[in-house]
Structure formats: structure tokens, C-alpha cells
């Protein structure tokens, strides 16, 4: 167990969660809960991988996978914004549809061989930084670096710009935003689709950079749901989401590495000698998410933080509400 390796792996695979969570933050900040992240990620993953297999071009795969996630989210936007339907159910439907469709598309892809992946880079200079260099800037995929750029940009956009102010307004008080001339419907559409593009990108990141290949639903394996949970943990802040994503992925990597050595902290490693005990290790990430949500709920109540006030509420002009 090497801490640098664990943290570097956490940054690499945490990038998936980071993209998905940032996308969901945009959507939820606009007041639209999208529980279809898992489905959109699966679509992004399968389209990206399939394109890379067919054309040999991972960049084209990245583009089409991202677009596939965005395309699926249009459905959610129409149903929840124009038709004002229940956002929870629509999101669940999106996950069913996305995973079903992805499995149909990916039917023959599980037998596909190796593909050329997106390039990995080591940043000269920065990789020499003690501690940080080997973790963040050594032999990481270009998408990891893209993640480093996206997070501060998203933070700046939401918190420091005029369009970001409009974004927060339509999520907190669409009636007030509307009366000030902000086009609530159009902006909500835009941010739901941005969320979908990010989810597609997250899926593409899995198959083109983190763990290439198509393994059906196991390709994404619940990371879309974990991203939704991360958004709550992050209290709708991209920076907190990034920290959470890297840490969570690092912990998951550590749980795998624990099973390797026959000695753990100077004692015989129980997970090495009794393999069935590792099922308890596999529970840990999910229990951790629950534990974190419980902890955050207490903090949210104390600091009066919380979800955007109009999250989950369809906006109907002229009707009482937010």
C-alpha cells in the first residue's frame, strides 16, 4: 500500500465522479433534479467506447459520448420543464432507458479488444512538486487535467458571473427571476443539457481513460448515483464536489489495495486469508456515502444551508410557488 499510488489513482478515477457531479450541480442549481445520471453515463460510456472501437479515434469517441449524454438529457428537460412532470420519476425513467439502450448498443462490444486511449501527460515542472506532483501531475490522462480546469471555471461561473447569478436565481426563486426578465424555461433547458453533456463526458472518461472496456451496467456500476450523493455532500459547490470525488475514489482504491498483502499493520491480513470477508470491504464505500450524508444533514441544518429552494418544483408562470 503506497499512499502516493492510492491518491494518484483516486485523482484519476475520481475525475469520473467529478464530471458527473459538476454536471448535476449545474442542473440542480437551475432547479431541476436529474436522477438519470447513471443512465446518461452508461450511454456516454458505450457510445464513446463503440466509436473508439469502430474508428480507432478516441477523440471522436469522447465527442460523441459527451453528446450522447446531452441528447438523453433533452428528454428529461422536455418532460420535467415543458410537461412539468415529477422530476424523480422522470430521472429514474432516464436511468432505465439509458442503461437498456446502452446494453442494446453495447451488445457486441464486450468482446472488442484493446482500443487506443486518450493520451497521458506528465506536466514538466509541476510533477516535481513534492507531494502534489506525483499525485496530480504525473502520468495522468488529459481528462484529469481537463477536470482541474473545469472545477474552478464552474465555481467562477456559478458564483461570480452574471449568467451564474441568473442560474442561481432560477433555482432559488424562478418567479422573481422571471419577473426580472430572465427566461426561466430556456435557461433550465440549457443547464439540464449541460448536466447531460457532463454525465456523457463522465461515462466517456471511464471507457476512454480510467478502465477501458465495456462490461454492461458494471461499466458505470452505480457511480452515477454516487455522483448524485456527492452533490448533496458538496452542498452544490463544485470545489467541494471535486475534493469529495478525489477522496472517495482514493478510499475505494485503498479498499482494493488492502486485500493484497498477507500482513496488515504487522498482523495477518484477514482479507487475504479469508476472501469472503472482502464483501464487507466492498460495502464500505456505500456505507460511507450514507454516513457522509447523515453528517452533512446535521451541518446543513446548523448552517441553514441546503438545496436550491425550487429544486424539484416545476415552474409554471402565474402559479403560486417559489
Amino acid at each position, binding site marked *: 500500500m503506497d499512499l502516493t499510488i492510492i491518491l494518484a489513482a483516486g485523482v484519476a478515477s475520481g475525475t469520473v465522479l467529478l464530471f458527473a457531479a459538476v454536471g448535476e450541480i449545474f442542473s440542480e442549481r437551475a432547479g431541476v433534479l436529474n*436522477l438519470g445520471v447513471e443512465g446518461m453515463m452508461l450511454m456516454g460510456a458505450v457510445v464513446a467506447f463503440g466509436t473508439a472501437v469502430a474508428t480507432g479515434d478516441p477523440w471522436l469517441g469522447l465527442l460523441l459520448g459527451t453528446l450522447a449524454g446531452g441528447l438523453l438529457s433533452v428528454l428529461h428537460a422536455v418532460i420535467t420543464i415543458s410537461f412539468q412532470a415529477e422530476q424523480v420519476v422522470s430521472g429514474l425513467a432516464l436511468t432505465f*432507458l439509458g442503461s*437498456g439502450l446502452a446494453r*442494446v448498443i453495447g451488445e457486441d462490444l464486450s468482446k472488442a479488444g484493446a482500443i487506443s486511449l486518450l493520451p497521458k501527460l506528465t506536466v514538466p515542472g509541476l510533477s516535481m512538486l513534492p507531494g502534489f506532483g506525483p499525485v496530480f501531475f504525473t502520468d495522468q490522462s488529459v481528462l484529469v487535467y481537463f477536470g482541474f480546469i473545469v472545477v474552478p471555471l464552474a465555481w467562477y461561473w456559478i458564483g461570480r458571473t452574471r449568467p451564474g447569478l441568473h442560474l442561481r436565481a432560477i433555482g432559488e426563486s424562478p418567479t422573481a427571476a422571471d419577473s426580472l426578465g430572465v427566461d426561466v424555461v430556456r435557461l433550465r433547458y440549457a443547464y439540464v443539457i449541460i448536466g447531460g453533456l457532463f454525465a456523457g463526458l463522465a461515462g466517456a472518461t471511464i471507457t476512454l481513460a480510467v478502465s477501458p472496456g465495456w462490461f454492461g451496467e458494471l461499466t458505470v456500476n452505480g457511480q452515477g448515483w454516487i455522483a448524485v*450523493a456527492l452533490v448533496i455532500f458538496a452542498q452544490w459547490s463544485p470545489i467541494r464536489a471535486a475534493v469529495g470525488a478525489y477522496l472517495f475514489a482514493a478510499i475505494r482504491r485503498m479498499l482494493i489495495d488492502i486485500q493484497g498483502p498477507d500482513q496488515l499493520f504487522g498482523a495477518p491480513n484477514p482479507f487475504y486469508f479469508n476472501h469472503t470477508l472482502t*464483501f464487507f470491504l*466492498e460495502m464500505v464505500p*456505500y456505507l460511507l456515502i450514507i454516513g457522509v450524508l447523515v453528517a452533512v444533514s446535521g451541518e446543513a441544518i446548523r448552517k441553514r444551508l441546503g438545496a436550491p429552494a425550487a429544486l424539484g418544483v416545476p415552474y409554471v408562470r402565474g402559479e403560486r410557488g417559489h
Partner: protein
Amino acid sequence: MTTTSPVRLPARGSRLPWSLRLERRLAVPRWLPVATTAGAIIVALAISGLILWIAGGDPVAIFVHIIGSSFGSLGVLSDTLVKATPLILTGLACALAFRMRLWNIGAEGQFLMGAWGASAVVLIPIVPAGTPSIVTIPLMMVAAMAAGAVYGAIPGFLKAVRGVNEIIVTLMLNYVALFWLSYWVFGPWSEGGFQLSRPFPPEAWLPRLSDAAGAVPDFAGLTVHLGLAFGLVAAVIIRFFIFRSRRGYEIRLIGDSPKAARYAGIDVTRNTIVVFAISGALAGLAGMSEVAGVVHRLQQAISPGYGFTAIIVAYIAKLHPYGVIVASIAFGALILAGREIQPSGIPAMIQGIILFSLIASEVFLRYQIRLERREA
């Protein structure tokens, strides 16, 4: 509710010679929900067919195959009902929780925990081998419902007391339940290192119709088991619970308007935990019915996602217990026939499309839509 100004599609400034006028409905005619549901399912099947056709399949052949291999004979009809059984119970679990707008997405995990609880009765074992069915089976039912109820009460408690999002908690607990089950079937209960337990003794099997083939020869080979009766009885009980009991009234009121319910002095915290526990108990019973009625042992792959399909079932049924029975039979057919359909994602895709068109169709329940010619 105030009447609102009608919405026009497309909006002003369009050059189309007509526009759609959406007016808020003040009352919904009784026939309309049934009609929109039926219409939505037809549209969904048409869209699914179109996708299958684009993908190079023969949609008509696939649909004919689904119907033939699920309703074509008494034998396959019986198999369809066997698949519908766990859906009825998990569908009721979701319908009850959704009535209160509690999003229990964890019926899958509660199902697995119920299956585990029922198995524990004969595998630990809690009752000695050879205990008659009349004792073993009720004990298994109680154990399964208790395991499911406790597992359901956890998200209920966290939601009620700490305001933790129940969707995420129930989803995470699904994974935890799967690993818990895996531990037992790979570890302490594994038979010869395989990932399944030893078979249950016959006293722990739910009676099947085919068991009565000696008296009624037509029953030979019919796999329908007592679990179907559990589902039907549960539907009747939940129907009366929701529409005729005081707590049922409270649940519906909380679902319609949590604020009004609070002002009326209804204990939302308590009801949240109770509803989640009942919901979990129903899903747990489904798990017991599956291991004792179909598989007769505990293994990892006991559910092809019953707990998730249950969400759609509950929604198609408009959260009505009797509707859950009908919808379960339809989806039981889809699951049964779906096992032979390639690619394997087709049934999930069709489920997603059906759910989508259902929620989209509800716009017709909220709005009256008129086509208007543009005045010159």
C-alpha cells in the same frame, strides 16, 4: 388553485397557422387516467418497435414472441404469474411509499434482506430440520418481513429525523444488501464452495399448484405457488389500509400536501418511519416468496431487478393496489419473455420508454389541450 392564463405553444410571434392552447384542468374525468395510461403504453410500444426496427430487429416478431411465450398456454401463463408474484409485493411496497411521496428506491435491497431472513430460519437453522411446514413457513414469513421492515426503516428513520435524502440512502443500501447476501452464499452458507446455499428442506417450500396434480390432473407442471396468494391478499389489505384506515388517510394527506398535514397535527416523522417499515416488510415478503416458492435455496442471483421494475409497476398502476396486480402480470410477462430476447437490454429499454411516455402523458391530466387556428 387559481385559474391561470392559458399557455400557448408555439409562443407568440410564431408564423404557424395554428397554435396549441394549454388550459389547466379543474376537474379530471374518471375515464381519462385509464385512457392516457393505455395511450401511453401503446405509444411506448410503438417507439420501442421503431427503435428495434432501426436496430435491425423485427419488432412485430419480438412482440408476438413476448406475448406467445408469456400467455400462449396454461403452462407459460403460470410461469408469468410466478414472475408477477414478487412484482406484486414489491410494487405494493413502492406504491404505498410513493403515496406519501417517499421515494423508496430500495425495494431491491429489502427484497434481498427478506430472502436472507427467510433463509436464515432454515439455514442457521432457527428451527430444527423436520419441523412441519405449518410452523416453518409462517416463521420464514415473519423473519423475512422483519428483516425487510428493519432494512426499510433505516432510510425512513434517517429521512424523518435527520432529513437525509431517502433516494440515495435506499440506493446505497441496495448495494450493501447485495454484498451482505454474497457474503453468506459465498461464505458460511456456501455449499461446497459454490455461490449458493444447500437446498431448503421440503417443509420450507411453498406449495405449488402442481403439488395438487394428483387431485386435479390439469395442475400438473403448473409452477404457481402460494406466494401469489400472499400478493393478492396483501393488495386487498393495502387497498383498505390506504383508502379506509385513519393512517391511510394521513398518508394520502401528507403525500398531497405535507404542509396541510402538519397544520392538521399529523405526525409526519412517525408516519415516514411506519410507511418505510411496511414498505420494507412487503418487499421482504417478496424475497421470502421467491426463495421458498421458486429457487428453494439462497443464491446471489435471485432477482433480475424486481425492486426496480416495481417502481414502474407502481407508477403504471397510478399507485393503486389493484392496478399493481394488473401491471405486475404485464411486466411479469416482459421479464419472462425477456430472458430469451437478445440483446438482453431490450426489456430494460422498453421499461424505460413505457415509464417515460407514462409521465409525459400526465400532461393531459393536468391540461386541456386545444388546437386553435390563428386569427388573421
